[in-house]
């Protein structure tokens, strides 16, 4: 059972079950805990090779035991995500912990990842359970619905879940080349039905200066 203690520490109460968490993110525990490094994120040999090839490397440990375990990552804000059979897309670096029952994998994101400067691939989490993602500043959760598509700056995008199509939109025109660009040259457009997590801070992206 995931709960937040403050906004920057995740507490997980366990009764013999397990969670997968980012390696080294445990800050404290009470009770009996066993920590086991999962090579390749617990995705087997195929997952391991895929992650190695795609650069979405993730060092994950499995924590199992009785008691409470606390996790934190560089004082970043933690956001809880509940999954009910749907899928969460998140960058490997932003994923802090998941229920052991959730499946993680790697998927191709195309140009969106390239614009963010963090690669063409992203991590997916699916199944039933909870996941915790980290962001720079508390994430704002925005709903995407068929009548209200959402446009997001690639540098502020953290994660999304649900049945959402993303497309890349570029506002690069001759003005950008003249240094008179709109400052928001690359954007990701989300359409469909789902949620998008946006952080109140922008990573440095190649699009940042245009």
């Amino acid at each position: 059972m995931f709960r937040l203690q403050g906004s920057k520490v995740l507490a997980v109460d366990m009764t013999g079950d397990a969670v997968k968490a980012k390696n080294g993110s445990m800050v404290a525990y009470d009770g009996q805990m066993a920590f086991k490094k999962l090579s390749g994120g617990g995705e087997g040999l195929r997952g391991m090779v895929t992650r190695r090839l795609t650069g979405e490397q993730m060092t994950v440990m499995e924590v199992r035991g009785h008691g409470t375990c606390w996790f934190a990552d560089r004082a970043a804000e933690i956001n809880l995500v509940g999954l009910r059979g749907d899928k969460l897309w998140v960058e490997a670096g932003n994923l802090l912990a998941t229920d052991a029952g959730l499946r993680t994998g790697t998927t191709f994101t195309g140009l969106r990842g390239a614009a963010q400067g963090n690669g063409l691939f992203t991590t997916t989490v699916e199944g039933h359970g909870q996941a915790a993602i980290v962001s720079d500043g508390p994430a704002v959760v925005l709903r995407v619905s068929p009548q209200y598509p959402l446009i997001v700056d690639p540098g502020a995008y953290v994660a999304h879940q649900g049945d959402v199509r993303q497309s890349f939109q570029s506002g690069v025109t001759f003005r950008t080349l003249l240094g008179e660009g709109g400052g928001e040259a690359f954007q990701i457009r989300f359409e469909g039905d789902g949620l998008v997590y946006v952080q109140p801070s922008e990573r440095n992206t190649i699009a940042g200066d245009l």
Partner: protein
Amino acid sequence: MSTYATPGAGPAVYDPLTLPADDNVNRYTFCVELKGGQWFLQKGKMIAYYGAIEFNGIGHGRLDRLVRTSFHSPLHASDWVVAQGSGKMLLADRAFDVNSYDLDDGNLTIRAGNLLAFQPSLALKQSIVPGFLTLIGTGKFVAASNGPVVFMEPPIRVDPQALVGWADCPSPCHHYDHSYMAGVLGGLRAVTGFGGVSGEEHQFEFVGAGTVLLQSTETLMAEAATGAVPSEPGVPGGGSTAPGGHGPQSSGAPRLPGQLGDLQRRFGL
């Protein structure tokens, strides 16, 4: 309507109908509602938007009239864009606190890097204090600060790093503690740090009627490059003199950091 209803105990989920209009979503995120109107915003501070919003550089031809009435800072033109259209737009800056302020036929001067966005009913001008911008008129603007902003009344002396801005024109000046100034020993201490400096010997002093805005940490936000003002006699910071130049008193050559310039003057050299 949507299968992704607000999860029981989870975070609030926003859509265009539940997002606030021209108000904070949380401490770090501000939502602007555009109804066919325009807002000026600093480049790259938009994190997401719903609706149809267009972002254009200040030099965009169709914005000529707007820029003529409310943008008077050519040095910052490349840092600013105009958003127009209809929809709701979220603004944020490096996970700093953001807040909106209303000016009612007033004026406010703010550090250039702290200002995020403003309504075109305000006019933006460059302050004669280098690195600061002045907003004049009636309207709303959004500013970021490292930690919550506190409002103080002059007379007050403030730490240079904590100053965000000031409103209604109290006059700011530099203030140095007396012991830091007095005698050769004081000068030695100021230059070398020997004999104990608290790091608080230099302050900004505000007198007059008005309000001073302070942020609650001394970690400065990264400065936006403000360029150089035209080189003219009488323009502070103008021309090619180094930022430490002392006008008529400076002895010609620009003072380099670490040089004992002030000591030399004390000895009458």
